């Protein structure tokens, strides 16, 4: 029971956060497929995944050398910077101050941009398309790697966090392969809001653990912190909507 009090939120956070990132990467990869076919798309994706694996295999063992409290503090601060940034942006999108992420519009823009670049260069068109897929998977994958390490390394939860991310990849790839178009129906801002709440909660929790804070209720404090972030995010979005409407 004690293990799953933190393992379940870690798995869920990694799953939902990775879902958002993989959906964004899939949009670009599908744009590459539409322009140049599967070969450069798969080559770019596999190359990026290989590079991400190298990063994880290189950095992973180094984390074991860092003392636990220092690791929790460093990761907690990074999670606060990352998670509160997501929650802030999701609140602003919910308030209508920042435009919502539109996968269909991004797909159309990417096809047009990539098509123009491919047309400009007579040679190595597959290379340009493959590089677009490579960059998309690498950049979105970097965030997935960070999230897995951040929610998992603080207390030996890399396996549930990794399984959450892997589950998200499988779900998105299966749906993407079936429908063969950007997953624009995914409620991306709601997911980002939830992820922002979860990552910010882990950020406060790990930072506090790193500073030696004896959280009341121990691991269960994570749920109380999450409820406070959720409430603050929703109230901030409502207040921002009122300010913008004035």
């Amino acid at each position, binding site marked *: 029971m004690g293990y799953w009090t933190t393992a379940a939120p870690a798995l869920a956070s990694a799953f939902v956060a990775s879902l958002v990132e993989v959906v964004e990467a899939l949009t670009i990869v599908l744009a590459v497929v539409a322009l140049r076919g599967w070969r450069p798309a798969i080559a770019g994706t596999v190359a990026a995944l290989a590079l991400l694996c190298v990063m994880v295999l290189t950095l992973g063992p180094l984390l074991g050398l860092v003392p636990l409290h220092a690791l929790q503090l460093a990761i907690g*601060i*990074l999670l*606060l*910077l*990352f998670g*509160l*940034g997501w*929650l*802030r*942006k999701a*609140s*602003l999108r919910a*308030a209508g*101050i*920042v435009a919502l992420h539109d996968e269909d519009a991004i797909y159309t823009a990417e096809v047009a941009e990539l098509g123009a670049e491919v047309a400009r260069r007579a040679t190595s068109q597959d290379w340009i398309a493959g*590089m677009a897929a*490579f*960059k998309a998977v*690498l*950049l979105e994958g*970097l*965030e997935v790697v*960070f999230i897995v390490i951040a929610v998992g390394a603080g207390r030996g939860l890399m396996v549930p966090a990794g399984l959450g991310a892997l589950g998200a990849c499988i779900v998105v790839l299966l749906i993407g392969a079936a429908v063969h178009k950007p997953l624009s129906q995914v409620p991306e801002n709601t997911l980002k809001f939830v992820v922002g709440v979860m990552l*910010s909660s882990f*950020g*406060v929790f790990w*930072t*506090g653990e790193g*500073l*030696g*804070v*004896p*959280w*009341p209720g121990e691991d269960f404090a994570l749920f109380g*912190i999450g409820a*406070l*972030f959720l409430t*603050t*995010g929703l*109230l*901030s*979005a409502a*207040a*921002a*909507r009122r*300010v*913008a409407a*004035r």
Partner: protein
Amino acid sequence: MSVLRDVLEELYSMFAADAWLSLGILAIVAASAAASLLVSPLAGGVLLLAGCLLTLAGSVLRMAIRRK
């Protein structure tokens, strides 16, 4: 080089997309560390949580006012 530049830009945007928010978080962590040492660890935890919640609300409202 373009890939490396994109990776560095991505890392920057991951952690410091809004400079004021990032500075605010770092200041709160520093204040919480001081409170943990000088007052009590629990006081540091309360300051950390309350500070992060207020910084979030302040950052969202600041952006809403700027975009009016």
